[in-house]
């Protein structure tokens, strides 16, 4: 049995192990891995996430048990100090000796610390390992206690430097990025895109200092500032250096391998060093006289080394390595591909810049206009995948290449075409090097017909995940080309879309979940199909969540919103936000009695937090006695109809927005839908009720109401679109009735109206056709169905409080009266909050 020793347990070292065990039969090789850090390999690319969640485990590439399960002998905290090439052995710091047949060096790099006077002072850190971060964090905590508004500088405005700036900001320090070059990310961005990024970052509170050469670091013992020129000083309390990397190539040097003049171990296209039994991969490998500091080439090198060792000698490294990257920097998309900066003699550039929106797009096109040579995207990189593929595969450009970054104007054909136009060799997932051909073949020949199955079989999308939309398209398009219908099935238990299930329930008059599963489903259901079907029952029969409580999401099951510590919040309906002083006093009294944290919600009502399960019926009994009813804040249902004060009080008001909003909220209250629905009514075009970012909105104008639909805030804010202009209240209500009913019947589960409209063939014009022109001939029926829902409304909390059987559900223990004693609160601004998560 041959022995392979891997020195270094970073991302690339881990990837070598992963690829190795996938290809080699257990027992034919012995694999031993040494890591200098105390932890097993973790994802350095996402290091700043450690600050967001403090969870080092989550960053790890694989748990320690994974190495055991795969018979890999792993030594962490164990540095390899010498390689003895003659005896083919290595020794470690603790003076252990091991034999190898093949040695793989994957020692990575260390941060480059420039020789600046004072760089050894306290408070100067580098940004590379979790330990670096922990030390930085500890120091930050210390200075936050002693200094008011502490500042931290980051030396280096490259990719890692900006990540570090984000980390420093998350620590609560004022970040200052200091860069030697006249622009940020000098390797990836041109001057103008860099400026766009800079303006955006500054608006987020990151200070940026360009063209600064640091002369010395000031301070007596610990850092207090940086000196650039004679009178140019920046006072800071901490400094993080992120000025590039240096390969950790000392092992190679000391055992006499061929080295590059500026460091790095020279390798050929088989990843072999000058000693045929020793390989070098990742950031120590000098290939084509270059060190590659990106993860994708490192992974590719790992794959080549694996194949070479197991005898698949045809696998070699590509002659040219693509350095294209796309990343989200502090929430801003940044991407560059191909030749991002291009001299004018090679081609010309098409540039779109919009500083107010922080957008910059540049593509470089050959002189004959036929080929894409490279480009830069800042602010919006959703077209990156397609552009990269066009560049990599030298695909012909459309007639008007500017459409690639501007989108089609004047109704021309969409410029991109489909992912199916790519050649089979096109690498779609660069992290795992999976080509379009492999994906399509896996769909066609191995029957992997979903994104999940493809990810499992090919590993595509399991790296950075950026290629997910494209892989999804490929799977769907391939299925289509095979004549298979692409099913948007709800889950593994129902091979139907939500819309199909809706029709089945209605036609077969099925009334409970188990019957539906027995009739048209399989297995025993899950947390995806249960609430989806519950929502369908609610929409057809208007049954409350109380009848089939175990197919509801926890919020619906207990008619309250579960919060961080397993307690619930309570929200009574306050239609349109209109509330009497008497009602306010009642809420205040009840909240005080049960010691609840209270807050005004975004929907103009009052949320009471921190109620334990057994308290919910008691609280509701009192609220109902005061005339309140449930606000359905827990449901995928109508939440609120927000209103401005309207013509009743406002000197600009065109109509009574509050009255209309109250009527509408009472009309649609209790109606459950594929996702939550929010409404708004504004009394004039100043739009104080923000009706245009709601699922439906009415705005009073001269001569009637304008009706808007399908807007939302949330993760992807979208403005509502105009459905009808200057109509009276009755007509406006009728249109929204039909629109909501149509949406409820046709949308996939958990899809807001805006996302539903995006996918609807024909878009808003089609909705107008259905709702206003009745092109499907279903308007009457939609009207009737909506009226049924309106007429059969009942307050489900009243039902729960009055029915002893339902009420009995509100007990934490089934065998004891007492409350859950594990719930702990701490105080917050004279109220309370859940104790922090451990």
């Amino acid at each position, binding site marked *: 049995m041959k022995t392979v020793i891997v020195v270094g347990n970073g991302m690339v070292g881990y990837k070598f192990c992963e690829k190795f065990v996938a290809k080699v039969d257990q027992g034919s090789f012995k694999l031993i891995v040494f890591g200098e850090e105390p932890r097993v390999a973790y994802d350095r690319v996402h290091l700043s996430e450690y600050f967001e969640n403090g969870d080092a485990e989550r960053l790890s590439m694989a748990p320690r048990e994974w190495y055991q399960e795969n018979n890999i002998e792993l030594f962490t905290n164990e540095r390899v100090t010498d390689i003895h090439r003659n005896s083919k052995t290595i020794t470690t710091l603790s003076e252990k000796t091991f034999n190898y047949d093949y040695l793989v060096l994957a020692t990575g790099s260390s941060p480059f610390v420039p020789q600046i006077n004072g760089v050894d002072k306290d408070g100067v850190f580098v940004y590379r390992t979790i330990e670096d971060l922990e030390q930085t964090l500890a120091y930050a905590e210390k200075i936050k206690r002693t200094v008011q508004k502490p500042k931290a500088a980051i030396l280096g405005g490259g990719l890692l430097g900006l990540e570090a700036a984000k980390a420093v900001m998350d620590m609560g320090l004022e970040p200052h990025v200091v860069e030697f070059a006249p622009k940020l990310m000098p390797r990836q961005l041109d001057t103008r895109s860099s400026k766009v990024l800079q303006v955006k970052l500054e608006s987020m509170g990151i200070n940026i200092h360009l063209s600064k050469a640091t002369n010395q670091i000031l301070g007596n013992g610990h850092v207090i500032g940086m000196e650039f020129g004679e009178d140019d000083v920046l006072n800071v309390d901490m400094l993080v250096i992120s000025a590039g990397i240096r390969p950790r190539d000392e092992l190679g040097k000391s055992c006499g391998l061929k080295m590059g003049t500026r460091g790095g171990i020279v390798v050929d296209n088989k990843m072999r060093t000058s000693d045929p039994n020793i390989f070098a991969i990742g950031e120590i490998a000098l290939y084509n006289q270059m060190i590659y500091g990106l993860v994708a080439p490192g992974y590719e090198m790992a794959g080549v080394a694996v194949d070479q060792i197991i005898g698949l000698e045809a696998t070699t490294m590509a002659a040219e390595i693509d350095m294209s990257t796309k990343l989200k920097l502090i929430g801003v998309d940044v991407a560059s591909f191909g030749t991002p900066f291009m001299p004018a003699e090679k081609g010309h550039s098409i540039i779109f810049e919009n500083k107010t929106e922080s957008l910059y797009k540049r593509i470089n096109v050959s002189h004959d206009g036929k080929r894409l040579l490279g480009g830069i995207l800042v602010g919006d990189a959703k077209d990156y995948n397609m552009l990269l593929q066009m560049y990599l595969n030298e695909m012909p450009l459309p007639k008007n290449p500017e459409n690639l970054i501007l989108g089609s104007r004047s109704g021309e054909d969409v410029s991109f075409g489909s992912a199916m136009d790519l050649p089979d060799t096109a690498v779609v997932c660069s992290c795992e090097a999976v080509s379009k051909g492999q994906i399509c073949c896996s769909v066609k020949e191995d029957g992997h017909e979903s994104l999940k199955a493809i990810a499992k079989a090919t590993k595509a999308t399991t790296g950075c995940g950026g290629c997910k939309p494209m892989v999804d398209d490929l799977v769907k398009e391939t299925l289509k080309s095979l004549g298979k219908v692409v099913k948007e099935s709800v889950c593994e*238990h129902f091979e139907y879309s939500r819309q199909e299930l809706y029709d089945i329930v209605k036609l077969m008059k099925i009334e409970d979940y188990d019957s539906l*599963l027995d009739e048209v489903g399989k297995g025993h259901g899950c*947390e995806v199909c249960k*609430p989806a079907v519950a929502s369908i029952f609610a929409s057809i029969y208007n049954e409350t969540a109380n009848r089939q409580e*175990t197919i509801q999401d926890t919020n619906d099951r207990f008619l309250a919103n579960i919060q961080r510590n*397993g307690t619930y919040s309570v929200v009574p309906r306050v239609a349109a936000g209109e509330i009497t002083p008497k009602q306010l006093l009642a809420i205040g009294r009840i909240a005080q009695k049960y010691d609840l944290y209270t807050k005004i919600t975004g929907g103009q009502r009052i949320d009471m937090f921190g109620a334990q399960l057994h308290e919910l019926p008691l609280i509701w009994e009192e609220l109902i006695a005061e005339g309140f009813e449930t606000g359905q804040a827990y449901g995928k249902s109508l939440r609120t109809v927000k209103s401005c004060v309207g013509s009743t009080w406002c000197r600009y008001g065109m109509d009574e927005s509050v009255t209309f909003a109250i009527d509408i909220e009472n009309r649609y209250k209790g109606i459950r839908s594929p996702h939550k629905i929010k409404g708004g009514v504004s009394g004039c075009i100043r739009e104080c009720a923000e009706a245009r970012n709601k699922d439906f909105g009415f705005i009073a104008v001269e001569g009637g109401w304008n009706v808007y639909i399908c807007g939302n805030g949330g993760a992807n804010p979208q403005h509502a679109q105009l459905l009808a202009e200057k109509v009276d209240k009755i007509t406006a209500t009728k249109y929204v009735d039909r629109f909501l009913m149509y949406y409820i019947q046709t949308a996939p589960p958990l899809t807001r109206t805006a996302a539903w409209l995006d996918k609807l063939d024909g878009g808003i014009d089609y909705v107008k056709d259905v709702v206003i022109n009745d092109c499907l001939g279903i308007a009457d029926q939609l009207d009737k169905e909506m009226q049924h829902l309106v007429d059969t409304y009942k307050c489900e909390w009243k039902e729960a409080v009055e029915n002893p059987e339902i009420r009995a559900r509100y007990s934490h*223990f*089934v*065998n004891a009266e007492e409350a859950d004693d594990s719930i702990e609160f701490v105080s917050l601004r004279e109220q309370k909050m859940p104790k922090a998560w451990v």
Partner: protein
Amino acid sequence: MISNLNTYEVVESENVSIWFKAAAVVKFPKNGGACVKYKDKQIAVFNFTREGTWYACQNLCPHKMEMVLSRGMIGEDQGVPKVACPLHKNSFSLKTGKHLNGDLDRIATYPVKIEDGFVYIGFSE
């Protein structure tokens, strides 16, 4: 609260020394769960009516250490019976306690038996 986690250890049916009489069968919802108190432990008990089986596991979700699993929806993933935590939808096998959609720690499971209309949970101490 981490120490909580260590108080839950798998009990196999051959190691049961105490059958704890928890509550009447009718007190548990069909195809759903409820929480049982045993000493200082909280145990989620599920009446998987569709399978005709009962399951018990710790009520504590190992993700954020909240006592909520009994309020989760149950179901099945390719034949494996499971519970989905109501907070973040982490699913755990009701048979083995294994985390099915991630790498969280296994949860502890306990044997259940039904006698004379009562639910009993098996403990080793």
